[in-house]
Structure formats: structure tokens, C-alpha cells
């Protein structure tokens, strides 16, 4: 399988990841070799085999439910303590919607 630099840039865009031109060409080579190996899975017939989303869960369906009771959560100040730009009790970001 061939992975082009154009494909790499498209996927990087989906992943919100800035890559330098050098990283793009290196990534194309690495992805091609790894996906080339991974593609061997196509040789295996898995028709009729169920997909495993959860490897193990031994409890009943409702076992993880609890009473819906009010209880303390992380205080606003603690939640914002690591924010690069807090303000007014919120996470500030560049403007998204123009007025």
C-alpha cells in the first residue's frame, strides 16, 4: 500500500496536528511500512466472528448504577488551575463566532 504525502496531510488535518514538511515525508514512510504489515489481517477470514469491544465484564447490566444523589464535584478553581488561559471561571479560547 502506498501512502502519499497528500494523504498524510489530510489525516493530520483530521487529527488537528501540525506537521512540518520533514515530518510529513517521514510519516508517509512510517505509515506505509506499518500499514503494510497491518494489512496482512485481510488474509484472515473473520466472517461470523463477533467483534470484541469489551474484553471482560463479569457484572450484571445494572451493577454499575448508583443512586442519583447530589455530591461534591471538583471546585471551579481546581478545575481551572491548569488552564493556560482561565478567565471569569471559564477556559478562554480564541474567538470562534464572529459577532
Amino acid at each position, binding site marked *: 500500500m502506498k501512502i502519499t504525502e497528500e494523504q498524510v496531510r489530510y489525516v493530520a488535518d483530521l*487529527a488537528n496536528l501540525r506537521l512540518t514538511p520533514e515530518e510529513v515525508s517521514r510519516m508517509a514512510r*512510517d505509515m506505509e511500512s506499518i500499514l503494510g504489515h*497491518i494489512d496482512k489481517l485481510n488474509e484472515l477470514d473473520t466472517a461470523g*466472528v463477533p*467483534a470484541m469491544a469489551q*474484553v471482560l465484564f463479569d457484572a450484571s447490566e445494572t451493577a454499575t448504577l448508583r443512586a442519583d444523589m447530589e455530591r461534591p464535584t471538583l471546585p471551579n478553581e481546581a478545575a481551572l488551575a491548569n488552564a493556560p488561559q482561565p478567565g471569569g471561571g471559564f477556559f478562554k*479560547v480564541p474567538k470562534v463566532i464572529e459577532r
Partner: protein
Amino acid sequence: MDIAKLTIDGIRSGLKAKAFSARELCDAALAFAGAENPKTNAYLMLSEARARAAADAVDAKLARGEDAGLLAGVPVAVKDVIVTKGVRTTCGSRLLEKFVPPYDATAVERLEAAGGVVIGKANCDEFAMGSSNENSAFGPVRNPVDLERVPGGSSGGSAAVVAQGTAVVSLGSDTGGSIRQPASFCGVVGVTPTYGRVSRYGLVAFASSLDHIGPFGRNVRDTAALLEAIAGRDEMDATSAFAPVPRYAEAMTGDVRGMKIGLPKEYFAGLASETGDLILRGVEALKKLGCEIKEVSLPATEWAISCYYIICTAEASSNLARYDGVKYTLRSEDSGTLAAMYRNTRGDGFGAECKRRIMLGTYVLSHGYYDAYYLKAQRVRTLISRDFQNAFGEVDALVTPVSPFPAFKLGEKLDDPLAMYLSDIYTITGDLAGIPCMSVPCGTASSGLPVGMQILTNHFQEAAMFRLAEAFERNGGVDAA
């Protein structure tokens, strides 16, 4: 006391005999760790204040004549992907270089409740992605056995501190072998428990269907004690298991007569190496202890690497989406737009291996590829899991190598990510099936490098796994043969 060789049992009797206090032990451990760390870079930081407070609490309990817990006074290192309230947790990443978590992971909370003393945070591959600890943004860890070699990864720091003696036990995390492989490379014991046995609340997520927290120690008993302290249902992690936690110490009787051990033929085919010979000598030792040995087959093994690297990268690309410059400390230049802020922050913050896995994961999950990759891999995962269930219908435990080779040199495999991925073959299957597995020292190669033997048992059969490993260790390991 010889701090580098202390065991949990030794600490318990030392405290009881008043040979030292928990505070004295803590201070000695911190001083030793501070002095030795420049050799290996295994600690990213020491948590002096927190450690001293925990040690003082143990001493106060002992002074009142109370039970100070299973881990009373024991110096513990915690892998830096496990959050510690008020103590910086970086995940080995520039992105989280200044991140100070507002809460404790359940495993940390529990080990402290059992009297454990967290003395520092252990270096690791960035976001636990890697097999050599060379992907840490804060420099690689060196293997204490041979400083020119890697300690393995991704929990390289957690293995190295235990081998070096700068912690008695440690916590690591394992998604595809990140506890067992470094344990094997550094000559210590490393345990990956059953999926869900230990709460992941506070473990920074890498691949959620595969992530585990588990212990390292210099002997089997110590890992069993640490696991016992942290295991069990936690309301904060819906995937944590309800099964009661046994008293593992009671299982380690030394008697393994009649235990049925399977050797998966797929794991030994083509293993014509010193590593293979050592594992087979280990198997001979188990036979001498009264185990019955038989060959079994796990035919889906050849598909495991592909299956694993689809699932883990897909889940990683999703889990790492949260590092976007909004919530966690690092934010890059934004050119006035939200999109540029996301892209630049992630481009600046993530190292090469994280970028590679985010890209692979995004690719396999992208439009039109889901069925061909992720869904296909989940079907293959069912086959791999069925293989183990079939094998455990015939035997009590499986014995295999941990890694195809002992610790390699720093830099030796950095340029070939596929080769690095392929070396995970013996460890990823246990994670895919969610079964408990561990690495126990099995002699040294002629180079002087340690080799680990992997033991795997069925879901929640940690007690049987510990019994076998401890009997092996107690009888001299590979030399009992």
C-alpha cells in the same frame, strides 16, 4: 539497613523491631534516590513533602499501636502517567510539563491508605507509548544493569528504580507489555493483572480497552502485596471488576505439584536464541517442582501485532484528542483562530511516537476505513481471546518468553518503528485477552543481561500465577533445573 535490597517483609519486621522508623526509612530512601538518580534518570521528580507526611502518619499509627497497613512505610515510585494530587504529573510529555493534577488516582489513594509512601514519579515513554523509554520528553532512562542499554518501556523508570534500589516497589501501566518487558530487561518482577482488576481512575488514558495498572518489585511477594492493596472495585471506574480480592500471600505455598503448564508452540517456534534456551531451562525447573508440562497452540498469535496496533492507535488518537491547548497547561501561538491553536499546540507538544500513533489511529478510524481496520481488529481480538480460553481448558498456566531478546542499546532501534512494534509479540496477546500475566526473572544471558519468563493464567487467576512464580523464585529460579 541496606536500602537497595529492602523488601516489604523486611520493612515490616524492621518497623516492628524499631530498627528504624517509617520517617527514617523515608528520608534514607529519598536521599538514596536523589544521589543515584543521575545515573539512570529513572525518576522525573521526588515528592519529598508528600512522602514525609505519609511516613509520619505511619509512625503515628504505629505509636498508637494501630495496624499501619499492608504497605506500612514502604517507599513506592509511581509511573508518571498516574496522577498524584499536588505532585506534577507529566506523562513524559512536553504537553503536560507543568500539569499539577487536582486529584489522586485510586491506585495511589489505596496504596497510601495501606501505609505506602510515594517518594517520586517514575520516567516513562511519552503517554506510555514505546518499548524502550527513549520517547520521554525528559530524556531516556538508562538500565541500571548496563547504563548503555535501555530499561525497556514504556514503564522503564518504574522498572529501573526497583532494580536500582531507589524504590522498594513501584506502579507501572501496561497496554501492550509496558510492565512485563521492562521488568524482564531490568531483572525485576512485573505484573499485569486481569483487565479491570485495578481501577484506572487517574491513569492517563492511552488505549482504554487495553490499559492496566500493575506493580513492580524485587520479588514476587512484594508485587502480590502491592496488587492486593490497590485491587478491587472502584465506583470511579465503571470497568473495574467486582470480583473479591484474595489474600495473595496465602496462595504462595511453594507447592506447585500437579500444576499443568502449557507451552504455546507459536511462541517458541523460531526462538533459537539464548533467550529461548533460558526460558526452556526455566520450564525444566518448573517440571522439577512437580508441574506437568504440555504443548498447546494459540493459532491466532500471528495476527496479534496487526490487531493490537489497530486497536491501540485508534483508541489513542481518540484519547489524546483532549490535549488541544484549552485545558492542560501548554498552549501554542494561535494566530487568532481556534483551529491554529489546536494544531500548533499538538504539533509543538507531542513527540514523534505520539504523532505516529495519533496519525495511524486517525487513519484507521477515518471515513471508509472503520470496517476494514478497527472492526476487523475487534473480530481478530475475539479469536485471540478464544485461543486462550481453549488453552485454559487444558492447562492452569502458560509459560512463554517476555521479549525475543534482552535489553538493547540506547538508540539501536529508534529508526525503525515497525521493528520496535514487532518486538512486542509475546506481551500484547495477554493485554488483548485481558488475562493476568507477569514477568519473573529467569537467569541471565552470557552478556550478563537479565531475561524474564512470562507466566499467564486465566481471568482473575492471579493467585495461581503468583503461586507458580513464587515457587519458581523460592527454588532458585532457572538454577533449580
